[in-house]
């Protein structure tokens, strides 16, 4: 087997992943979607929990498959010195390495930046941690909602006057991964110009802070600590989600006084447009609680999708709030190729979530997530140049399987 060339801007770039769960693997997924060859180093001794979570077959784990399409897998036992030697050898043939193991674990394994750099001086080494690589709190660990809480994001999500509720529990890992992927490609660009690699230290908590940067600016400039404010917006009113028929919801964002008139018209509520309490943006902001109650009463008997279409027709930003059913059935996402079919080694098709972008001369995204060690022969034989006998010896001694 030879390297699979899939086109795209990062074709020819080789990425090695020493990653777990979601944020780290998401970096590899984005780079693979841009055309890089991404190799996951895995082993039975330290298996990613997403390969086992809720299933018996580690090669058929839905969560793992969702985040690891278009990647290769090589099985190397990281807990043996021979395994570490093999990994260093692979890194010598690679451009980027990404790790999101527990704080300090990569150094303890003997794969810290100094060691890798001695082997491969121009490596781009991406290290991901909840608090980043250093600092008084770097020892702490946590999961996605902890990143959002620590980074100042959760405190802004909630109903007015109540404790923060926070974003949906799934938020944060993939954003963290995207920030890391961007930094890695910036470093790759620098390397192409100068031949110099580098160490990249990415903080999940700071990634969350950067998603609310303008709120942090309010404190920086004016010492104002913003608080949860339900669905309110400093420049728009009404701005929120309103219940419709069958417990569906419509999201509406009215950005001007003329949009407000159009909104009232499409809602068949001329009395709202005539109401002096709501005439200008400033009026609507002052009387926002009453405004929201009056709108909510008028959307209750409307079909969310139909009302959204009517509002759009009148020039108002509105959308049905998509449940999982709406999302999976969204013809626009299908038409764009956002949901697309990939195939595994045995010819089995599987639908995956594709990239957010379309681009000219894009990478072909066609491969499902790999079975554990699916590309052992390619990595050991084609990349590292080991003979069949040497590969058999690795397998017999348990370093690779």
């Amino acid at each position, binding site marked *: 087997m030879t390297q699979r060339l899939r086109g795209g*801007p*990062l074709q020819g770039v080789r990425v090695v992943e020493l990653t777990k769960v979601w944020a780290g693997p998401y970096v590899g997924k984005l780079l693979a979607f841009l055309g890089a060859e991404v190799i996951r180093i895995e082993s039975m001794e330290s298996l990613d929990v997403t390969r086992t979570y809720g299933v018996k077959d580690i090669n058929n784990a*839905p969560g793992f*498959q969702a*985040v690891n399409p278009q990647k290769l897998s090589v099985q190397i036992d990281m807990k043996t010195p021979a395994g570490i030697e093999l990994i260093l050898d692979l890194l010598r043939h690679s451009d980027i390495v990404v790790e999101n193991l527990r704080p300090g674990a990569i150094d303890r394994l003997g794969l810290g930046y100094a060691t890798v750099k001695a082997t491969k001086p121009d490596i781009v080494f991406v290290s991901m941690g909840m608090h980043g690589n*250093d600092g008084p*709190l770097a020892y*702490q660990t946590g999961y996605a*909602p902890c990143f959002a*809480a620590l980074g100042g994001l*959760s405190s802004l*999500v909630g109903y007015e006057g109540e404790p*923060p509720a*926070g*974003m*949906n529990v*799934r*938020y944060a890992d*993939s*954003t963290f991964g995207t*920030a890391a992927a*961007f930094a890695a490609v910036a*470093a790759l*660009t*620098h390397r192409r*110009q100068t031949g*110099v690699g*580098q*160490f*990249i230290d990415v*903080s999940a*908590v*700071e*990634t969350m*802070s950067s*998603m609310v940067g*303008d*709120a*942090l*600016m309010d404190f920086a*400039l004016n010492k*104002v600590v*913003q608080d949860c404010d339900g*669905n309110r*917006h400093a*420049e728009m009113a009404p*701005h929120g*989600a*309103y219940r419709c028929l069958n417990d569906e919801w419509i999201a509406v964002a009215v950005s001007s006084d003329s949009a407000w008139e159009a909104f009232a018209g499409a809602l068949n509520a001329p009395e709202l447009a005539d109401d002096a309490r709501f005439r200008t943006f400033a009026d609507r902001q002052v009387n926002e609680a009453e405004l929201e109650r009056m709108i909510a009463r008028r959307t209750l008997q409307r079909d969310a999708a139909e009302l959204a279409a009517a509002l759009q027709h009148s020039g108002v*930003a509105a959308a049905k709030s*998509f*449940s999982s*059913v709406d*999302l999976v059935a969204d013809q*626009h996402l299908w038409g*764009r190729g*956002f949901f697309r079919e990939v195939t595994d080694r045995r010819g089995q098709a599987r639908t995956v979530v*594709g990239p957010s972008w*379309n*681009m000219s001369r894009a990478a072909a995204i066609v491969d499902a997530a790999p079975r554990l060690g699916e590309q052992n022969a390619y990595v050991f034989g084609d990349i590292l140049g080991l003979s069949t006998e040497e590969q058999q010896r690795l397998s017999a001694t348990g370093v690779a399987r």
Partner: protein
Amino acid sequence: MSALRTFKVLELSESVAGEYCGKLLADFGAQVIKIEKPGVGSPTRRMGPFARLTPSPLMGEDASFDSRLNLERSGLFAYLNTNKHSATLDLSTAAGVATLAKLVDAVDVVIDDHPSGWLKSVGLDPATIETHRPSLVLCSITAFGQDPPPDRIHAEDLTVFHTSGWGYHTPSASNEKLPPLKGAGRFMVSYEAALDASLCVTAALYERMHSKLGRFIDISKQAVMASRVDYVLGQMVAGDMDVTTRRTAFDLGGPAGIFRCLDGYAYIWMSAPAHWEGLRKLLGNPEWMNAFPERWMELECTPERVAQCRHHLAEWLKTQEKEQASAAAQKLGVTLVAVNNASDLQSSPQFQHRQFFARVNHQVQGPAHYPTVPYKLSATPAKIESSAPLLGQHTDTSLSALQGQQP
């Protein structure tokens, strides 16, 4: 000098997504020229938070001075436009569009975030750009991509958020009586889209160094947000996870959540037996924990047990201070963390150690500590070298640089 110093970027953006993308590139050293409407500038100049200004003798006396000054007060604009140059150009005139074409000749990248169709109106039709300008990297960020359905023409971050699944499913463990929440702040969706745009632009530049070829990049905010939940959505679309209309369809369940403390709020995550045993040590083996079966969170996670557990957590945490509780918990393997606000972050020893906030001295607003970026690069760190430009501050230099570029 940072990673993207050799690249020239023209920014046509007039909202947060494109401006933040330009900032991410500029903070890595790219030379970004921002095009603004003469007299009024970017709409983000009229969005808060606004800096309070030190009074000047001209304030209130000179209307023209006041209106110009007002365009320089936005902290949002100041944050989003560090390291950029500002040139004013009226793109509603033929002469403006002709000048734009010359500017495009002189740059490597164009970033835009107007609705689809706008680029064509200024002579940069995505459909033909590769033929006419084969070496240009053109990136467009829009709500739904280049071909939005007719019922999605008008969009704001909120409405996009609600077409991505995040709206309907936020917060977790939602109260069915209350509406879903918008997320954090005003611009989460735009910041997220800017990350993908910056990634794609940089990857395109990487390849272009060898191939000399540009590309058109079409970023859909809806797709960006939906891709952020790939772990769940990928399982749903593959038929491996139930697809329902429940607002809790993305949730994990269990007692995790935000609780009130003496000095604010704390978040506690609990999913594994190790968390439960750590909590037992932390609380000194309280009686109530004995009523719970072993591994209950994995095997017997009933709503009653969750409610009971949350009740006891709430009772305990309201007697605690968040930092102290977190430090004690983390030592025992309990993932308890502080819920920080903007003030906490500015004084956080961790953020100070990592210098996440950088002092920037704005020409009109004065000095303030701006949030920076979440990645530290050892050889080419992102850096704020100059504060956001005044409206049209670099019009002359940017346009006169074109003189040398005439064919």
